[in-house]
């Protein structure tokens, strides 16, 4: 449901900076259904890639073989993100706050962390430069927090236009897609509000899964069920991917001299 909902946010023709996992699944589902001309860029340097199966890593051979071009990694960030050529960026994180700021660095103190997370990667630049950002995260009180332990990447900073006033070029998080539904920023305060719930998900449970007092949009929507053809496309994609990843690796060594 998260994958399908994320895929729906993508308009055909958009230039997407794709992370691995759920974002990659969502982008490719969109490409295989309503948005065949999405331009997918993975930070490994593959531009315009059209993978037949989903990659496990951000640099699988599948991405290289099906790409329009492969560029050196520095150019992905400089020529595409920094130069303002990316329409949609995807982010996940260990923690998010009510203004969509994200932590993927540490839980606890930076110098003495209780959990050392993987770190920034491309997230700060995606958050800064993409015209819009889609965040995909499971909603729990430990991840949707009142106060981040560390701000790795920015959402709307303190809200109320602070981000735009700081000169930050991108548009910030347009939607946060969770396992309960979709949060969107309030137009003025930019505080994330529950904008849509999945069929069967309850408002009370969504509130309980949030570490701050979650506000609800005036016109709370219900996310429509996935269309059967979209579900079928997703099942096919996942099945192809599982088969491909199950194939054993065999390396032929030259005969010993």
């Amino acid at each position, binding site marked *: 449901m998260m994958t399908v909902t994320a895929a729906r946010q993508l308009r055909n023709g958009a230039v997407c900076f794709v992370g*691995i*996992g759920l974002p990659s699944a969502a982008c490719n589902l969109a490409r295989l259904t309503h948005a065949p001309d999405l331009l997918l860029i993975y*930070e*490994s*340097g593959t531009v315009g890639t059209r993978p037949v199966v989903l*990659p*496990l*890593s*951000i*640099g*699988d*051979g599948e*991405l*290289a*073989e099906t790409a329009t071009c*492969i560029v*050196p*990694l*520095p150019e992905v*960030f*400089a020529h595409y*993100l*920094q130069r303002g050529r990316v329409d949609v960026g995807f982010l996940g994180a260990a923690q998010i706050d009510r203004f969509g700021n994200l932590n993927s*660095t540490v839980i606890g103190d*930076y*110098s003495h962390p*209780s*959990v*050392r*997370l*993987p*770190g*920034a*990667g*491309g*997230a*700060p*630049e995606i*958050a*800064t430069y993409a015209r819009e950002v889609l965040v995909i995260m499971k909603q729990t009180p430990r991840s949707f927090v009142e106060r981040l332990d*560390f*701000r*790795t*990447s*920015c959402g709307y*900073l303190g809200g109320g236009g602070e981000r735009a006033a*700081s*000169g*930050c070029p991108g548009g910030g998080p347009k939607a946060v897609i969770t396992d309960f539904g979709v949060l969107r920023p309030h137009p003025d305060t930019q505080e994330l509000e529950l904008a849509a719930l999945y069929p069967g998900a309850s408002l009370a449970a969504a509130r309980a899964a949030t570490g701050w007092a979650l506000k609800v949009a005036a016109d709370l929507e219900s996310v429509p069920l996935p269309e059967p053809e979209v579900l079928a496309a997703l099942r096919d994609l996942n099945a192809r991917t599982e088969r491909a*990843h*199950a*194939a*054993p*690796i*065999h*390396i*032929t*060594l*030259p005969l*010993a001299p």
Partner: protein
Amino acid sequence: MELLPLTEAIAAYVKDGQTVALEGFTHLIPFAAGHEIIRQGRRKLHLVRMTPDLVYDQLIGMGCAERLTFSWGGNPGVGSLHRLRDAVERGWPQPLALTEFTHAEMAVAYQAGASGLTCALMPHHATTDLEAVPGAPVKMLRCPFSGAPLTAVPALIPDVTLLHAQQVDAAGNVLFRGIVGAAKEAAMAARCVLVTVEERVARLNADLNALVLPAAVISAVSIVPGGAYPSYAQGYYPRDNGFYLAWDQIARDRKTFTAWMERHVLGVRDHATLLRTLGVAA
């Protein structure tokens, strides 16, 4: 460029206490070279790599490193690097100091090193706490033309950069094909470049605009088929995603990790033996 067995190349060029970068982004990660560094017991290395990946989890867990410069330290598509975490969170087997960049910062840091510069520039936006952590490597300045705030990123200049590639030709030129990450920049930045390759050929199977490192910029090449496994070599073998998933369990526990390393790295003579032991090569 000299053609050397990997054991001799590591013995000759990689020394305790050096700044060492093993690059290759997901693709062409020089695992065999990393394992040989472990086998030869190098210590106090300053390891540099955008995405530490399993090979740095192994180097760190085996006590080879005292500092890590990096921009994303996870098991791609799987989760944590448990040995990296154990070193940072609990100092096992020894404390690990961190110098932390974003991908974009680290890319320009290599570019600066490759270009004979002491630093590189990026537009500055006050969006991340990273620039304020203790020992943060970057500094702020202003564009002398526009007055716009800029981030200055110090150049990365490894003592040794180790890479894996597909082919070396008779003259010692090396071909990289597929996803290249920041391999070229890391190589051109380094004082010394070592490369392992899948095979030696009379003439590279290279397009006019292929990424080829000329022999003149390389110190030594070692022929190590499968040298990127469990990462991959485009046109030779795919990534062993199953191994990356399995590593999560192996590395989670100090004892299973140590046992695995003793059996599969310390306990084998070379990479070909490791591949046979794992059943990946016949």
